[in-house]
């Protein structure tokens, strides 16, 4: 068994076992190129590891919870997170570990290395995995190296890699991974070179940065760029970079540092060096008999090839295009920081201001025509902010994801979502709203006559203090029972709101745990203590970003809801006028424009009508146990309350199980009454899961057709640990 092979022992028949990168490096070594000391961990070793630890089946179980095409990207991310965490926690079996340690110690003698992925060509040359799998730079010590081998293995199952394989139709069951371990050459300047330009057959390209070339490959640092003429091997043009930063090794890993001003004045390569690098690329092209894309580094006078791969045809250029989309799923910390600034300082104040501005217009005083124009205007404002929501707010959720990844890497928790506990209990707007609701419910609890009046529908004589509180609430949070989408159909709020308040008042107040808060503090301390110095500072920043991202995940829709509430108010005013006219309460004819605007709104597509059970040949199909994604731990039982339209929310009773298509942040006010939450939409970070987690409720997401298969009143058991929903009692 050759679990680890040296380049000189790699032959053509080993190509699949060592992967494309490993095989090319072996060729280069044999061809006399200067390559840092390298060994390859074969894909056999990967297969042994996943077979012996049970991981192979565990991964397939995870990925086959439901049909892949039924999974939303968020669910795939969740799957990938769970799988990655299994890799992080599952050590390499001792026999394999012993062999790895012996060879790695003997080969690298305590020197720092780069641990790179080297995916076997799963489907000939058309599929390029460049950048989809992880590589780690400056790893020192045999235990750390072994750790990073597992991380590279795990990257075979990242969401981006999974989606990409799915798109190009590869069988994920056959996926495996080889790993290249290479002694690190700390170059003074590094870069890439294309022996032939993808855009111009007569030219080549050399790109260079100071320091390690990790920064260039990641896209973090802009390189100096030379266009080369292939024929006479000369420089056609040079585009200098701004040269502000460089990537250098730090204690463990690499860091982006400010480039010293003196150094930044000169291009990283002098003209002779540019030619030398380009010659190397052409030599590699001659050796491999195809144009090459080369990574190189200069250590003083010595020029090393770090890796070389073929520049494939135009068709693979196309593949690269779709790959870049999957690569973009990973937003960098810097990007997210900039996005956060924009959202917090510009977009949210903008949304609040837009809602306030609309609220200042006195609708009842507008003539019909102007009211029609106002509805149009409000419709547009609402559209505009909905679009901003999709374009700017949704991507910011990556902040949670980035934090989760770093947390799991460092802490290796048993529960891959432990990190969410660290992000909760921020000042989410929906929690603030629910607290206000709770305060109103408390007033009802303490005041018998208030409860009686509300139940009897006698609103006139209600306690003015209560009514005032209620007004403030509606003003701040808009119309409770309207969804963000399709909300123009909704009715006056008060009745529904009274019902919910009475239901809340009939039960003791819900206390969202002190216990969790304490746990959170301990987790935070443990997490931050796992870092030192500069890294600790970054960890603090990352936690802050994660919290902001998590909080916004809930709040953004609440702010959007305020804008929509203003649209709804205008629509309601129009409807009132039309109704008054039809009922003969007014003789004034309604302007055509207004009627038209309201009619147009009604023509908007409505949500699907609920499924009716199909009769057929005396057989009745009944769902019993539905599998989704575990999104909030716990086990709960209760009658189902299926939310098919927003008005259903007002019927919500204490202890029921909330079954819905998607928990809209504007509906989360019933969550404190619920015993558990079940949602069609999948993912750990969707609103339903977030708010369920805040209240410590079991939650299962990603149950296809949840609102179709489950009926009101069905006895439901929600297993939030395993992601299972059981319908019906245990009788036959």
């Amino acid at each position: 068994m050759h679990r680890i092979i040296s380049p000189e022992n790699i032959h053509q028949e080993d190509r699949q076992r060592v992967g494309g990168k490993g095989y090319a490096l072996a060729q280069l070594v044999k061809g006399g190129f200067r390559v840092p000391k390298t060994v390859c961990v074969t894909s056999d070793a990967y297969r042994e590891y996943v077979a012996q630890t049970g991981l192979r089946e565990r991964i397939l179980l995870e990925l086959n919870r439901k049909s892949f095409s039924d999974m939303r990207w968020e669910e795939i991310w969740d799957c990938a997170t769970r799988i990655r965490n299994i890799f992080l926690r599952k050590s390499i079996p001792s026999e394999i570990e012993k062999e790895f340690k012996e060879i790695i110690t003997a080969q690298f003698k305590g020197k720092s290395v780069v641990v790179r992925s080297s995916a076997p060509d799963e489907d000939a040359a058309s599929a390029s995995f460049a950048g989809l799998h992880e590589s780690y730079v400056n790893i020192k010590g045999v235990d750390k190296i072994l750790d990073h081998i597992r991380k590279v293995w795990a990257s075979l199952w990242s969401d981006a890699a999974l989606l990409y394989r799915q798109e190009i139709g590869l069988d994920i069951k056959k996926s495996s991974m080889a790993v290249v371990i290479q002694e690190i050459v700390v170059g003074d300047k590094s870069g890439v070179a294309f022996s032939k330009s993808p855009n111009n057959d007569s030219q080549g390209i050399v790109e260079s940065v100071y320091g390690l070339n990790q920064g260039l490959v990641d896209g973090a640092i802009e390189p100096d760029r030379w266009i080369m003429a292939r024929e006479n091997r000369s420089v056609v043009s040079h585009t200098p970079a701004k040269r502000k930063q460089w990537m250098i090794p730090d204690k463990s890993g690499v860091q982006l540092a400010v480039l010293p001003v003196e150094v930044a004045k000169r291009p990283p390569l002098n003209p002779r060096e540019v030619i030398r690098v380009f010659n190397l690329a052409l030599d590699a092209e001659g050796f491999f008999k195809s144009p090459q894309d080369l990574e190189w580094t200069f250590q003083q006078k010595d020029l090393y090839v770090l890796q070389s791969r073929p520049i494939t045809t135009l068709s693979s250029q196309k593949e690269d295009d779709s790959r870049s989309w999957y690569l973009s799923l990973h937003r960098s910390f810097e990007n997210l920081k900039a996005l956060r600034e924009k959202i917090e300082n510009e977009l949210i104040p903008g949304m609040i201001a837009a809602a306030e501005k609309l609220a200042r217009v006195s609708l009842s005083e507008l003539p019909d025509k102007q009211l029609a124009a106002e509805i149009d205007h409000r419709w547009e404002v609402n559209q505009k902010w909905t679009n901003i929501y999709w374009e700017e707010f949704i991507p910011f959720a990556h902040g949670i994801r980035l934090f989760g990844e770093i947390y799991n890497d460092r802490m290796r928790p048993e529960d891959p979502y432990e990190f969410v506990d660290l992000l909760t209990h921020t000042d989410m707007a929906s929690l603030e709203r629910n607290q206000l609701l709770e305060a109103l419910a408390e007033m009802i609890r303490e005041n018998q006559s208030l409860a009686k009046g509300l139940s009897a529908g006698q609103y006139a004589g209600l306690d003015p203090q209560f009514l005032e509180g209620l007004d403030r609430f509606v003003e701040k949070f808009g119309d409770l029972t309207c969804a963000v989408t399709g909300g123009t159909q909704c009715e006056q709020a008060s009745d529904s709101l009274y019902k919910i308040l009475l239901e809340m008042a009939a039960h003791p107040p819900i206390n969202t745990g002190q216990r969790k808060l304490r746990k959170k503090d301990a987790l935070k301390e443990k997490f931050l203590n796992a870092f030192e110095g500069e890294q600790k500072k970054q960890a603090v920043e990352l936690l802050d970003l994660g919290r902001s991202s998590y909080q916004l995940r809930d709040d953004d829709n609440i702010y959007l809801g305020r804008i929509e509430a203003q649209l709804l108010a205008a629509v309601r005013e129009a409807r009132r006028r039309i109704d008054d006219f039809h009922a003969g309460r007014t003789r004034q004819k309604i302007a055509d424009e207004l009627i038209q605007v309201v009619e147009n709104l009604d023509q908007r597509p409505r949500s699907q009508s609920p499924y009716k059970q199909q009769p057929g040949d005396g057989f009745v199909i009944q769902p019993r146990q539905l599998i989704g994604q575990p999104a909030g731990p716990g086990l709960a039982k209760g009658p189902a309350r299926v939310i098919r339209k927003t008005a259903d929310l007002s019927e919500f009773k204490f202890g029921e199980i909330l079954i819905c298509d998607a928990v809209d942040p504007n509906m989360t006010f019933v969550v404190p009454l619920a015993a558990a939450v079940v949602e069609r939409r999948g993912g750990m970070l969707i609103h339903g899961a977030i708010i369920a987690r805040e209240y410590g409720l079991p939650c299962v997401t990603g149950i296809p057709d949840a609102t179709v298969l489950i009926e009101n009143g069905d006895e439901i058991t929600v297993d939030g640990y395993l992601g299972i929903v059981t319908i019906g009692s245990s009788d036959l």
Partner: protein
Amino acid sequence: MEPTEEIRSRLRDLCVSQKLAVVSTQSDGQPYASLVAFVASDDLRHIFFVTARTTRKFAYLTKDSRVAVLINSSTNEESDFHDAVSITVIGTAEEIRDPERKKVLALYLSKHPYLEDFARSPSCAVIKVTTKSYYLVRNFQNVMELHVD
């Protein structure tokens, strides 16, 4: 006659080679069969499996602990009729708690490492079947019984 030790060893072999078993429970006289991933103790006195607490089989075996377990080596081929070995076990089932649960889980997961998340879930119960009798069926219709004292 085949020595007892040899029969025991055959039973053990089948229990080790097979991953799945059928467990039968009952409710109001209505039998109910379920597929489970199991592990047997080396002395054959116990068979263990894990089930979610929300399942029918869990509700039934809680009401009536008497169960039957079928383990067999059939592969859905014609040759199964002469070749497959099957055992039916009867016994009583109960949920076990820590510290026994922990020990059994280690044994269970050494056979089914891919079921770690499932088996460790707080919503799942570890069930111990204390075996009373084994019925070994070979060569289509040859049946030997082994009673546990």
